[in-house]
């Protein structure tokens, strides 16, 4: 049990590393910074692996909780406590493993950057916050992590703050996320108001013990479960870049490429999926919200996949691919295939991180060039990058037996059981995904080199510190799927599904979701999805394969100019937001400014000024002639009296003594008259 007791170190070590690097700053030697930056997540990875292993072999299937201290006491008592259950085990392993590999990669990628310490401080901080998010045993700790990763995302998107665009992109990400965070908070308030606690176990137990209670109408025509899940889902939409709040993620590519890999592909953006699955007890009792989740996920998946087609920036392609794959995960979560969603989350973390790191390696080699139209034929110059990138591409395309196939297939199977249209969208998206990913692969690594000769002369394979993580991630992308092979008839080796089963167990009457397709249907669905993927690959090959270069793509653009224009401009979503939300805010602000300048400043302030001036003139007259008149009058009276009385003060002591004597005489006479008279 020793490893489990060290659980608290998992998030703490990266946080400590972050603080240490931030405090040491750029004064210390780089190897020391590197040691801290890699040591903290490395130790964290080791501890989390041991802890998860111990957990899986001993405590499982019960959850393991570690209370550190009471955060708040009183009516709402919240502990700072960590929870290790199957779900958080998976998340912890994914986050620490992928995170550590990306840290290693960053040592090479950021080696020449002047902000080396700052970068790793942020990156470690992100790791700590993300681990807090997935390990917390209540919603508040999760929220702290949630905001923490949002902060790190903002900081790292705007990492190149000397340039113009990255800080803007960081602000955009932050503001868009705020919308979701607000809804998230409202959901938490509703939970506190209803249950008086934010502890996962207590909330879910309360819900499970009275499933009908949370289904009664609550607010806005929604049930309690429906309201809370809607709020939480809006939070997830913001964090996981779903329609309509996905716009920040493509711009987030302005950050360093390893950051894109870690935060904006593998971990942070999947926090929304994690949250939905974590609260699946509530979602199971809110079929309306679940349908919304599935619909939003499916539409986003398709929508983003089509945009990815027209992108020429390699990172933008991957960004829209990430949005699309996140949509896939939400589709899975929405149709009740929670373990499939988490499974896809895990496999996606591997191959999408690999794709981003591979693209980073390419960009590194291309001296910072990100436009695929200037690449081509890099296969020979970057053999390791090419090999790993290709594995990841095949994996995301859903070709068995690589990782993406199994997870994607399970989501599609779940969608088939829920609604055929969702399945169809998922299938089309799978085909499109294969197509655009192979387009990217072909444009980058095949054909002739289209860049300048100077760039060509600098082409080089990345150093080992960068290629090693690529290889590890490639192995993961290839094999990770094997832990979750779907149940085929009597052959049941879905280790992953069984491991996650305690967390996603059906609640109450929602139990009928456990549909199981027959063996034949299962195989048919697999076959169709593989066929879609192969079809997509074939299309990509027809267009971009061999020596065709860009001509194939341009031919398509000429044949469908309207579609091409729309896709190139990403459905004009940014423009629509600009015209509505941003312009609206601007004009509202301008209106308020006019109100301020005209009414407040002009009428109220200046008006009150005039009134004040008039009043003070009036009171000035009053002061001058009435108050001062009284004052002068009293002075005049005093002067007159003193002129009268000062004649008595002669300064002659004899006269004073005489007055005293006369007074004495009068007193004595008075005495005599009284006593004797």
């Amino acid at each position: 049990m020793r490893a489990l007791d060290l659980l608290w170190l998992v998030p703490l070590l990266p946080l400590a590393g972050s603080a240490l690097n931030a405090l040491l700053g750029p004064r210390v030697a780089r190897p020391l910074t590197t040691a801290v930056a890699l040591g903290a997540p490395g130790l964290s990875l080791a501890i989390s692996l041991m802890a998860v292993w111990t957990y899986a072999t001993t405590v499982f299937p019960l959850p393991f909780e570690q209370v550190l201290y009471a955060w708040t006491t009183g009516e709402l008592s919240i502990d700072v406590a960590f929870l290790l259950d199957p779900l958080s085990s998976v998340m912890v392993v994914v986050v620490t493993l992928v995170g550590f590999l990306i840290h290693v990669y960053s040592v090479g990628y950021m080696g020449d950057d002047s902000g080396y310490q700052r970068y790793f401080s942020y990156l470690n901080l992100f790791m700590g916050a993300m681990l807090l998010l997935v390990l917390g045993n209540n919603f508040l700790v999760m929220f702290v992590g949630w905001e923490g990763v949002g902060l790190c995302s903002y900081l790292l998107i705007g990492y190149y703050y000397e340039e113009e665009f990255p800080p803007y992109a960081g602000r955009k990400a932050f503001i868009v996320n705020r919308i979701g965070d607000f809804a998230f908070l409202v959901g938490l308030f509703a939970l506190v108001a209803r249950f008086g606690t934010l502890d996962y176990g207590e909330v879910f137990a309360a819900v499970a013990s009275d499933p009908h209670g949370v289904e009664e109408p609550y607010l806005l025509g929604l049930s309690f479960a429906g309201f809370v899940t809607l709020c939480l889902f809006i939070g997830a939409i913001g964090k996981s870049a779903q329609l309509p709040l996905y716009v920040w993620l493509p711009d987030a590519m302005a950050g360093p490429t390893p950051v894109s890999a870690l935060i904006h592909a593998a971990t942070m953006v999947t926090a929304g999926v994690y949250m939905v699955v974590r609260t699946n007890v509530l979602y199971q009792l809110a079929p309306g919200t679940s349908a919304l989740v599935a619909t939003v996920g499916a539409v986003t998946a398709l929508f983003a996949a089509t945009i990815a087609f027209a992108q020429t920036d390699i990172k933008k392609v991957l960004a829209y691919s990430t949005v699309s794959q996140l949509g896939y995960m939400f589709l899975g979560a929405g149709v009740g295939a929670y373990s499939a969603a988490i499974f896809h989350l895990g496999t996606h973390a591997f191959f999408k991180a690999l794709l981003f790191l591979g693209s980073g390696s390419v960009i590194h080699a291309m001296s910072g060039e990100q436009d695929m139209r200037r690449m081509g034929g890099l296969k020979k110059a970057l053999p390791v990058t090419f090999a790993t990138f290709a594995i990841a591409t095949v994996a995301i395309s859903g070709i068995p037996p690589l990782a993406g196939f199994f997870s994607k297939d399970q989501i599609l199977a779940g969608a088939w059981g829920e609604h055929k249209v969702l399945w169809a969208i998922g299938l089309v998206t799978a085909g499109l995904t294969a197509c655009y990913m192979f387009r990217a692969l072909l444009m980058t690594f095949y054909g002739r080199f289209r860049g300048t000769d100077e760039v060509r002369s600098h082409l080089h394979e990345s150093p080992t510190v960068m290629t090693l993580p690529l290889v590890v991630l490639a192995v993961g992308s290839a094999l990770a799927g094997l832990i979750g092979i779907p149940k085929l008839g009597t052959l049941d080796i879905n280790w992953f599904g069984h491991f996650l089963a305690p967390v996603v167990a059906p609640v109450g009457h929602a139990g009928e979701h456990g549909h199981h397709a027959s063996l034949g249907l299962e195989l048919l669905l697999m076959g169709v999805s593989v066929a879609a993927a192969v079809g997509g690959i074939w299309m990509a090959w027809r267009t971009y394969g061999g020596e065709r270069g860009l001509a194939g793509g341009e031919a398509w653009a000429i044949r469908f100019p309207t579609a091409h224009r729309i896709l190139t401009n990403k459905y004009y979503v940014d423009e629509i937001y600009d015209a509505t939300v941003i312009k609206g805010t601007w004009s509202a602000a301008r209106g308020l400014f006019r109100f301020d300048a005209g009414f407040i400043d002009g009428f109220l302030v200046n008006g009150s000024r005039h009134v004040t001036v008039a009043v003070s003139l009036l009171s000035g007259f009053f002061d001058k002639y009435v108050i001062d008149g009284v004052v002068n009058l009293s002075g005049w009276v005093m002067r007159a009296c003193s002129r009268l009385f000062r004649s008595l003060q002669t300064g002659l002591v004899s006269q004073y003594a005489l007055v005293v004597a006369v007074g004495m005489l009068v007193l004595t006479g008075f005495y005599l008259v009284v006593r004797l008279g």
Partner: protein
Amino acid sequence: MTVPVVWYLLLAAVLFTIGTFGALTRRNGIAIFLSIELMLNAANLAIVAFSRIALESGDLKSMLNGQILVLFVLAVAAAEAAVGLALFIAVYRDKRTIDINRLNLMRW
């Protein structure tokens, strides 16, 4: 033939009146002082006379009280004379006069 006590008292009243007149009319500070000493002595004379009357009502202690009061008046008069004369010296040093009509700094 003994003297009626009231005569002593009448003498004291006469001396006091003369002293008062002097204190009110003299301009020389020291002369005023002398007049005041005269008034004090008149008062002493009256006190001793009263103490004699007290003895006649059969109380030796009352008489002694009166005489001791005179003793104290003597002592205070001595102290007063010392301080007063020193004051006049100080005033004279500053003003070159002890004519009280010229010592009129307090006048408006």
